[in-house]
Structures are given as C-alpha cells and as structure tokens.
C-alpha cells in the first residue's frame, strides 16, 4: 500500500512523461530529492525518460513559480532591445502548482512576467509542507540521515536514534493556516480538489502581535530582525521579487545604506514586505530560505490580513481581479485619515 505522496509522485511522472512525449511541453519544472534529507531541489527535465527523476513529498517548499519566468525565457530566441517579439508560438513549459504557487503564477501573469498560454500547470492540492527546522527541533537538532514519510507521520533517523513524529505537528506555519490548498489555475490535476480549508484563528500569529503596546511591538520587530545579515535570501526566494535593480541595491536614489545598520535593516524588511502587499500568497519561501531563522513571514502575513480586511481581496485568487493596490473603490475605508477620525470622534 503506497502513501499519498508516493501515489502523487507516480501520477506526476506519468502525466509529465505524456506531456513531454507528446511534445506538448518542451520542459517540465518539478522537484527531485537532494543530497541532504528534507531538502528538495527544483528540477527541470526535458525528456520523457527523465520523468522518473521527479519526486513529490512534504519537503517541496521552494516555490516553483520563482523559476518559471527564467525557464520560459530560456526558450525564447535572443533579442536586442526594440526587436519585435518572435513570430509564431513559442515552446510551452509544464510546472507543478499547489494553491499558493498557482496564485503566484496568476500574479506573474497579471504582471506580465509569465505568458499563461505558454504554461501547462499540473495542479496538486497541497496537504501542507513540512518545516525542516521544526523537524530538527523535534529531534533536538541532532544530525538527520534519513526521513521516511508516512501519510500522517514521519520516521526520522540519524546516528544512534530513530524517531516517529506526527506530521501535522511539523507542518509549516503558513500551511497550517492556509485556507486555499487547491490550485486556482491548472490544466491537469493530480488527485482531487479539496476545497477551502476551514481554519480557526487564521491570523492568530498576527493578532498576538497587534495587541502588544507599540514599544513591545518595536522590541519584537527589532529583535526579530537583529540577526539579519542582509544576504537577501528571502528576497531571492520570492517569486514576486523580480526587479532588475532592487531598492536595496540602488544608489540613485539610495533608499537604504549598504552596510548593516539598524535603521537600514528595518527599512529593508518593511519595504520588502510592503512590496508584496496584495501580492504575497504566503508560500513561505522567504522564511524557508532564511539562513538566520528570521520569521519575516509574519510581516507579509500582516499585510495579507489587512488587504483582506480592508479590501476583501486575496492575492492571485482570480485572474480578472486587478491587484488591490492598482485599483480602488470610492468608499474604501478611511478611518485612518486623521481629518476623518477627528470627525468620527466628534460624532
């Protein structure tokens, strides 16, 4: 009896083999296991034979949308600036997508980074991915040499120990609070759609901070980012951070200093998160990528909560809805406007 992930893996291989063999796609973007347990690597395959290298498990945490634009571009003939776009259809590319990744792809399409017609999305409803750091914590940060995954538990082993861990206990925070596990765009589906998840206290983590006094919030924030080495791994892992010149690297104008300065680090994190406002799908790549264990996801989570509260919008849920910061309603909330709140208080 195979596990859910084994079944998904074999279905993926079958579908991808078919897509490549028929010539429907020129390449497929999926995962394969790396040399280190619990670290899955993105993998691009170009032949049906390679389909068997694809794997699926609970450690597929790097957002594949991040690799999609470059992969598509690799199939375009080289062009100089001002040259017209190539004539005729360009090769298509296949990609795996869960709920959040597919929503990133919607945004990439809306932001002209990805041509929907050139992407064949193979959708998978996410069961939630596992946080490697949680697993390591659960085994007391001992070396891990092998992890075997059952449907509801993980068997973790290392030198001189073997431990079975409840899977849900080590699922990433973003997945535990995710309500949209199903892909919103797909051309083929592996397994069934699960529908929206019912999550109580979806924004609990954010709310726990919101209730603090301003000085305590500052103390939380400044402590959280204190260890930041400004390596920008969080930015690099994000499928939405694709500016050719990031504001942190810009010298004209210089928004932040290049050295590690408290204020500059804070402004980096504030602006990085703000740039994701209305776009972030809480895929968790940033946090997964951080070598210092900074929990910066909560920053984008806060913006996600506010965008939902204020504008009833969630990023990438619908190809037709304009991004929330590129549109407006006449009666958008404005209690924060001082002249309005003074009026309100008087009333």
């Amino acid at each position, binding site marked *: 009896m195979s596990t859910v992930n084994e079944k998904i893996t074999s279905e993926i291989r079958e579908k991808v083999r078919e897509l490549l063999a028929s010539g429907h796609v020129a390449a497929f973007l999926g995962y394969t296991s790396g040399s280190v347990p619990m670290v899955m690597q993105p993998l691009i395959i170009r032949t049906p034979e390679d389909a068997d290298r694809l794997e699926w498990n609970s450690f597929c945490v790097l957002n594949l949308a991040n690799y999609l634009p470059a992969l598509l571009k690799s199939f375009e003939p080289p062009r100089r600036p*001002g040259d*017209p*776009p190539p004539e005729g259809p360009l090769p298509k590319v296949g990609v795996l997508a869960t709920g959040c990744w597919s929503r990133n792809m919607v945004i990439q399409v809306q932001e*002209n980074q990805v041509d929907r017609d050139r992407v064949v999305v193979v959708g998978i409803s996410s069961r939630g991915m596992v946080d490697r750091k949680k697993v390591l914590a659960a085994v007391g940060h001992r070396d891990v040499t092998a992890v075997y995954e059952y449907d509801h538990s993980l068997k973790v082993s290392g030198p001189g120990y073997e431990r079975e861990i409840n899977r849900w206990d080590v699922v990433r925070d973003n997945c535990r609070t995710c309500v949209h596990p199903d892909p919103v765009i797909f051309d083929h589906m592996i397994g069934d759609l699960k529908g929206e998840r019912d999550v109580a206290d979806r924004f609990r983590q954010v709310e726990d901070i919101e209730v603090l006094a301003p000085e305590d919030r500052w103390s939380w924030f400044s402590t959280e980012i204190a260890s930041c080495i400004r390596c920008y791994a969080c930015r690099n892992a994000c499928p939405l951070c694709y*500016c050719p010149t990031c504001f942190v690297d810009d010298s004209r104008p210089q928004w932040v200093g290049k050295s590690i300065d408290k204020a500059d680090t804070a402004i980096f994190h504030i602006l990085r998160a703000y740039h994701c406002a209305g776009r972030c799908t809480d895929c968790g790549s940033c946090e997964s990528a951080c070598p210092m264990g900074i929990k910066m996801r909560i920053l984008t989570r806060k913006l996600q909560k506010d965008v939902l509260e204020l504008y009833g919008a969630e990023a990438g849920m619908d190809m037709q809805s304009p991004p929330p910061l590129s*549109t407006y309603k006449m009666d958008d909330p404005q209690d924060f406007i001082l002249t309005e709140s003074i009026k309100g208080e008087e009333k």
Partner: protein
Amino acid sequence: MSTPKGSVLVVGGGIAGVQAALDLADSGFYVHLVEKSAAIGGSMSQLDKTFPTNDCSACILSPKLVECGRHLNINLLTLSEVLSVDGEEGDFQVRVRQNPRYVDPEKCIACGSCAEKCPKKVPNEFDMGLGKRKAIYLRYPQAVPLKYAIDPDHCIYLKKPGRCGFCEKVCPADAINFKDQPKEHLLNVGSVILALGFKPFDPSGLDFTGYGNLKNVVTSMEFERLLSPSGPCQGHMERPSDHQEPKKIAWLQCVGSRDINRACHGYCSSVCCMYAIKQAVIAREHSSSGAVDATVFYMDMRTHGKGFEAYYDRAREEGIKFHRARVHTVSPAENDNLKVRYAGENGDIREDEFDLVVLSVGLATDPQVIKLANDLGIELDSDSFARTTCLRPVETSRNGVFVCGALAEPKDIPQSVMEASAAALEAERILYPSRWTETKEKHFPKERDVHAEPPRIGVFVCSCGINIAGVVDVQAVTDYAWKLPGVVFAQNNLFTCSQDTINQMAETIKRERLNRVVVASCTPRTHEPLFQETLREAGINKYLFEMANIRDQDSWVHQRQPEAATEKAKDLVRMAVAKVRGDDPLPYNTVPVIKSAMVIGSGVAGLTAALSLADQGFPVTLVERKDRLGGHAHKFFRTWQGQEMQPYLSELVSMVEASDLIDVHLGTTVQDVSGSVGQFTSILTDGTEVKHGVAIVAVGAESFKPREGRWNYLYGKNPNVHTLLELDQRFIKDDPGLKGLNQAVFIHCVGSRVPERPYCSRVCCTHAIDQALHLKEMNPDMDIFMLYRDIRTYGKREHLYQEARAKGIIFIRYDLENLPRVSEENGSMVVKVRDPIIDASVTLHPDLLILASAVRPRDDVGGLSKLFKCAMTGDGFLLEAHMKLRPVDFATDGVYLAGLCHYPKPVEETIAQAKAAASRAGLVLSRDAVPAESITAVVNLQKCTGCAVCARVCAYHAVNMDENSGKAQVDTGLCKGCGACVAGCRSDAITLKNLGNEQIMAAVEAAMEDF
C-alpha cells in the same frame, strides 16, 4: 459684412462668463470681461460644496479664475458696468464705466494690513450679510484679482476726507489712492456674450416663511455661507440667533418658484431640489454629532440630472426625511425655534418644530440686469429671463449678442458652463475670419544651454513689505542663503514681485550667469508663473526654478514666534536650494495639430457639431452607423416650445450634405483609434483611414422598449400602447386615427428611477405633457390622465405643466409600491391605479396608452469609450472629465461628447452641448500646436520589469506597455504629471521629470540637516 472684429465682450464674471472668456481667449480672440463687483467668481464662489459630487466649490473654481486673471488675452474689467452697446454683429461699439477701486492693483500685494487697521465694519455681502467685512476689503480670500478695494459707500475718508486714512498709512506698498476716478472705456468688439447670472429670490415678501422676522429662518444662499469654511462661522454651522449648532433643520422647497400666487414666479428654478439635498447631506457631515435631523418639504422632487437620482436615493438611505407637503406657516417657538405647519398629501395638517429653517429660494433676474437688457435691446420673456428658443438656445433677440447661464433660464453649473462654451462658439462662428488678429503673444529670447554648467544658484528673499520682514529676519535668511552649496548670489528685496525688482532679477540672472533660481516669498500657486516668465525673459529655462513659501506658510502663521519663523525660513530656503540643484531644463512640449475633426453620430448633436466646425473652416469626417443622417430626431415631433423638428432636421441634413468640408460616411462605425490630441488616426469599418486632431462623440441613446417584464403594460401586445416617440411618429404623420379618441392615459417613469435603471430620464415629463396638450389641441374633449411619480418640468417647462392642469388634464401620482396595473378586458384596455389623495383605486378605460419609457444608453457605447480611452458611468452613459466644470470634455484630451450619450436631455440642451463641444474642439483646431505638460513621467528601461502597475493606475492612459520590449512607455502628450505611476512602481523605474524620488528626498533630507 466687412471683416469682423477679433475681440468679444463678455459681461458677467461668474462661472459662465469666465468659461466663455477662456474658450474665446484660448482660441484666438481678445476678450474684455466686465464684472460689476471687485472680483470675478460669481455665485459659484459663494457655494460651499457642489452637487452631486460634493466637490469643494472654491477648489474647483479657483484654478479657472486664476487662469482667467492671468490670461494675456483677457482684459479683466472689475467694478465695471456696460453703459451701452451700439453697432451690429461683427462691429459693436461698447461703452464701459469702470468705478474706482481706490487701490492701485499694480501695487497692492494683498497683505491685508489695510483691512486689519480699517475701523469701519460693514455687513459682508459675500456672506449674504451674515458676517462683517471692512470698508477696504477682498471680496473673498481666493478673489481674482487678489487686490483689495475700498467701498466708497462706507469708507470714512472718502465720505469725509482727512477723517481716517489709516489704510493709506499702513499700506506697505503705497497702493492706496483716494483720488482714484471712474474711467470710461470704449471697446470695439465683434460680438457680445451676456452671462449676467441670477439673483437669489428675496423671500422678505412671503410672510408665511417668517423670513426677516424670525432670525433662524435663512435662505439657502445664507445657509451655504454658514456651511462654508470661509464663511462667517468658519464652517462650524451655527444658527444666527444664538450661534448654537442646529440639530434639527427643515428645508422649504419652491420658495419663489412654481408659485404664481404669492411670488409671481411660475417657473421652476431647477436647482433647488438638488442643492437642498446637498445641504442636508453636508449639514450632517458638518455637525459635530453627525446626527442632524434633516427634513425637506417639497412638491415634486426634481432630481433630473446626471447622478442626481442616485444622490437623492443615498440621502434617503442616510436618513434624510422628505415630506411631500406644502408648508402653510413658519411661526416662532420656544428657544428661538420654529414651528412649521404643513399639509400632508391627503390634506391633514401637521406640525413640527425645528432649530433652523432653510428657504430653498429660487433664481430670479436682478432688476439691474433687466434694466441693462432693456438698454441693450435684448428681449426678455414673461419671467424676465432672456428670450431664447429651443432650436437657438444661446441666441438673444439681437444679432451678435449671445446669452449663457442662468440669465436665460434657471440652471445648474454644468449646464451654464455648457452654454458658455456654446455662446463662445456662436461668437467664433461670426468672427472666425479675424482669429488671432487682436490677440497678443509673448516672445522670449533663446534659452541658454545650462546642461554642462555647475549649479549657479541665485536666491531672492522677499520682505513683502513687512509681511515677511515683520516676522522673519530676512537679512539673516539672505546671509544664510549665501552659504548654501551652489549659491552664488543672494539678495533681499522689498517686493520681489514688483515690476522693477522683476526687471532687476532678469538682469541679475544674465549678469551673474545664474542657472538656477530660488525665490523665497509667497506661494507658488499665485506667483510661480510670474517668476518663471522672468527666467524665460532672462534666457534660461523656466523649470530651473523653485519657490520657498516663507509668507503664507511661515511669517503669516508664526506671527508671534519670529525666531522660530526665521529658522523655518532658512530650512525652507535650504530645501528649495536642494531641490533646484537637481532641476533640469524641460522641453516646452507641444503636439502639432491636424486641423480636422471626426464627429461620430449624426443625430441632432452630431449634425450640429459638424456644422459648427465646418462653418469655421475646419474639415469634418462625419461617421454614422445607419444609412441616413438624422438619428432619432426623425421620430421626434416638436420641442416643448412648439417648434417642429422635421423641417429643422431636413434643413440641418441638407446643410451638412451641401458642405464641402463635411465628409459623410454612412453605414460606418469606428473600428480603431490611435494617437492623442492633435494627432489621432482612426480606421473606419469602410476601410477609410482618417487623420484628425479632435473627435466629438455624439452617438446618442435609445428608447427603452418594455417588451416584457414588470414595465410591459401590454406594450407590443396591444396596438394602442405606444412609447413617446411612437406617438410622435403618429403626430408627424398627422394620423387621423388620433382624433376620435375618448381617453388617453400616460404612464410616466416606465423603466426610469427603478432599481435596474436608477436614473431619471429627464425628458419624459415635459415630452409627455406636451403630447397630452397636442392631443387636447386635436380633440379638446379627450380625457387625459397622467400617472406620474414626480413631475419634473424644470425651468420654464413648468408653464407647460400649469397649462396642462388648466386644460383639465388629470394628474394621479403613483409610487413603486403601487404601480398602475394594465389589463385587457373584452378587447379593451383597463388601467387601475391607486390615487393617494383620495386614497382609493381609480379605474380608467383608455383608447390610447402612452408609456413615457426610459432613455437608455446604447450598448455599443462601451466599445467606443475603450477606443477613445474614455470612462463610463455605472448607468452606461459616457463620463465627462468633470461633472461640474468640464461637461463636454473627456478626461482624454481632444475628445468631446455631446447629446444623449452623455445623459438624456431635450433638444435645446443637445444643441447647446453640441455647440459647446465644437467650441472646445475649436481650442485645439484653432492652433498649429497644442501645449503639453512638461513635467511628465519618464521610464528607466533598465529598471522596468513591465509589470504594468504604472499603466493600471494612470487615469489618463498615458502609460502603456510597449509591444516589442514589454516595458512601460509614456505618451507625453497624455501625461499630466500627477506621479501616481511613480508612487505605484516598486522598481523606481518610472519617475517624474524634476520631481523624481531623488529630488524629493533631497528636499526632505535638506529639511532635517544643517549644512
């Protein structure tokens, strides 16, 4: 006629006069604008907010006034009146008397020291006498010209020379001139436009209102001032008796309107329903508790304009009460309150108490204007409005003299603005051979190329007499400026804006080879253009300039903190220097103009617009989707004044067909449009490619045909059920079948003012009543019933309603809860309706049932609006650039609209709007090139990701994505320089010239640091 004059006299400086003056001056004519008071702005400047957008009146009006005041080709004659107009069309001789201002406008700096010292307090007419001003005064804070004037009726010195004269002593500019004398100007003009406006009806004679005896009964104009932040109570809304905030307010409608008995004004004033609702809404906003109890007592609620019905609906939802009742008396109650006795619809008498009663007074013609009209030989009608006809809506009885605004009939601001442009068009039609013959043009020397030069900044610090120097240590600021990086010259001036200082500044720029200039003085909003012009005169680009506002935003607001104000002035100068250092010379962008127009749609609007342009020599491509010209007008019988449409239409069509300049494309629509103002290229479905400088969209609307559903009423099922236009067609054919009928029933609001079509169709009440009267003409014995919700015969159309009632036509009101029911019994129609007055059901047996069905927008308007990048309303009509002040322009420059695609409207308004659109189009067509914004967005392709946020947030469609590169590109012809794209861009890839992030940051950082 010999060559006409190239100048025009506009009488009246309200919004209509200002609009007419600007249209003419901008299209090649010299304008003399005569205004009786000390400043232009008219009644609109007195309003707090305007319906239905709740725009701040001053905010939207001020830029137009400033433009008018500075215009090289507008000769503003304030405190002036026209004495006589002799001569004829094309060549009038006008005598104008200009009364003394006693203040030299060349010298006055509007510092206000004079008014502060003036001991004489006078009731302020601008505040309707509710507040006081001094004998030396500004009409209002944003007055244009911003120059004080002495009121000779109250000035102590002028009455008894030697007695006072304080103003002369304190004036730092030596501007007071007690010896000022009246002047008489002789003007030779080709045409005259009268825009004399209205006077609010004076309710003193109406005892039942209590006005004049009861302090807390005010007129609507008085209430407008009570609401205004610049009014007598700074917008805190106080009632006159005790300066307490009123909690319960009543509005009494139709005071001095629709009242033949008491007020002798039979007409409807058109605007009062909407302004009363607006005032109720705004009063609730202003009140500290937000819970003003507002009640409007009315006869018919007339919310017949664009966006009005929705405004009314929202007001009701918000809890404003509307009582269909006529008020008998307003009498005093305790605590200065007021008791209002009124009769409900079914006749029962009720009473309620209010803190404040607002009389929604009507619009009437000022007796002085009546006299002037008589002197000028302009015919007035029985209501004392200028006589015009539906087919010639802005023409007076005297050739070459035109009228616009409330002088012709009570009307709202957009309608007045439309007519102003239409009147300008009529003048242009006569005078076009003399375009640009009398206008002045400014010439500047060639500009020095400063790109390679290091910054050489000059700083001019103004004392503004004592306005700045009395608080700020200007010498210290000047000394400080010398030390700032890049500054090579600094100087303190007594009045930097005085002519001699300006001349000297130009010399200094040349002598010191300055390439950047900072003036630390008053506000750039009034003075930037003047100083920028000085830069140009000195041979450098005008964008190498910044101002530091050390008066309005420093010395005047920190009068008791001289040291802090001086430090702040230094900061402001430092910020301006930091900003100006990064300024680049910018091009004075222009777009060459293809001098031809495309008009889409050939109904009355399209035909009128096409002819109006062709008459001035501009070629027109007229595109009509059907295979004949004329549109819906073919089905239209006559105007409400009785002019028949068919002969008029035939004449229009034959003139268009005969014109060499109009190229007609029948059975054709527009397929594709590219380009922008001055340079459009359109592809028609017949394959023609048309190059044109402007476009007028006049595609009309459709009549709603209730073939099924709730509003069906047997339409399409019984042959005797018609829409209004179907009955008109029987009238046109003089159908004998109409003569022998016994009974006709009209049902109003069929498909209008209902949830699926919430707007009022504006035309149907008048049209239906006119049809009923025509049926009566054909057969006086016919019984006619009108089933209506509110009768909206606005303006002079009210007389038709009175006539209909006099002739025995029966009006029965229904509401949405009790719709009329129509059925067929034994082959004949039965109409049942509940009469609310007798509270019983009435059964009728008509031979003819007329449905006053809605005017609905055409389905293909959406496609057209996309082609021209124009917006649409939620109702599906096209949306103009600004509901109040730009009623025929689209937000897209060079594209205009006219007729029913804008909103339902009768033929007289359609003609006026079409002429207005032609006038606005003429602003472009009369020039070889049109100016475009210089401070425009610019894309850094290296940084651009092509994400299109910039394009999404641009309200002008000025940014789009280049098909080849996939990156943003800016159409500088469309860009207005607002910077929404800049703030939206995450990549810093799009910026504004001279307002980039780096420059703003330089100013911000300069504010914080000391060098």
